[in-house]
């Protein structure tokens, strides 16, 4: 029993000493637009994110320019006409896990969470609340979510000419892996 208490205390100290914020700069956020005319997919593998497991706070940051497309013209339109990346180079999310107690960050497993906060795209901030999962594994913690956004909500204007090429709601995928051991 004494030994067990000792182990618990040491483990507790170790967790505290190792810090409760996890950082990655190699996260992924992608989006997908499906219409009968064409499918458009943008991938960003340069997502910076911080997860504070003690408070449940979570921050994402991306450069709009980092989204990659299959076709050069899509990338150009996305940056120059729709997202205006010169004027609004970054998109950010700052929020919190609504139910942090549902996650045991020390026990491997997949936990359902809800994240709430401000999503800032194209210079427009909106309150959002979306479902996702936190997966605790050996050596890393992953945050995953899939949700939809409406470009008009962020004052992104799609010209009538291409209105049929771009979906009314865009599916967003978030896959972030935070290393919890070793170098980041």
């Amino acid at each position, binding site marked *: 029993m004494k030994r067990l208490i000792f182990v618990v205390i040491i483990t507790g100290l170790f967790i505290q000493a190792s810090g409760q914020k996890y950082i990655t*700069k*190699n*996260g*992924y956020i*992608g989006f997908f637009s499906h219409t009968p005319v064409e499918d458009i997919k943008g*991938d960003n*593998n*340069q997502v*910076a994110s911080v997860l504070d497991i003690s408070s449940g706070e979570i921050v994402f*940051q*991306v*450069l709009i*320019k*980092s989204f*990659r*497309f*299959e*076709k*050069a*013209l899509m*990338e150009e339109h996305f940056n120059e006409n729709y997202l205006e990346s010169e004027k609004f*180079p*970054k998109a950010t999310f700052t929020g919190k896990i609504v139910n942090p107690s549902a996650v045991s960050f020390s026990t491997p497993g997949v936990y359902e969470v809800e994240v709430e906060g401000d999503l800032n795209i194209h210079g427009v901030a909106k309150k959002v609340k979306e479902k996702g999962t936190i997966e605790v594994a050996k050596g890393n913690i992953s945050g995953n979510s899939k949700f939809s956004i409406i470009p008009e909500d962020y004052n992104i204007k799609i010209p009538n000419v291409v209105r049929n090429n771009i979906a009314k709601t865009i599916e967003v995928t978030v*896959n972030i892996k935070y290393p919890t051991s070793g*170098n*980041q």
Partner: protein
Amino acid sequence: MKIKRPYRFILIVILITGFAGLIAAIYLFNLRNKDLLKEKPNFIITAEELRKEFESDENASTLKFVNKIVEVTGVISSVEKGENNSLNIALSTGSSLSSVICTFPGITDNPGLVAGQTVTLRGECSGFLLDVLLNNCVLISK
């Protein structure tokens, strides 16, 4: 019906121009991202200098480097696999906070890159987030 000669000529010109335009439009529409191995770099710089440029004046450096092809040399500090077979190579810059992150898109095999190696990579600059970000990277030498 017989079309008069000058009109026939004009008609043919219009048809040829239209056809060429259509081909150009299809070509442009389907144009892929550049293959950076075939492109000349706009800047040749070390990872440390690149980070310092962005840190001293982010706005000026954004205008200078973003959308430009940058060939950067540095020591690899980390190699991370990402979604869609992407590979992120971080180069040390003499700062513990910021590095230069170079993303190789859709690469199935790591071309033998490991931490500690000195490499030269070529990529398209996306700007500065917490690090200087380069995209569509290719390996020039190691």
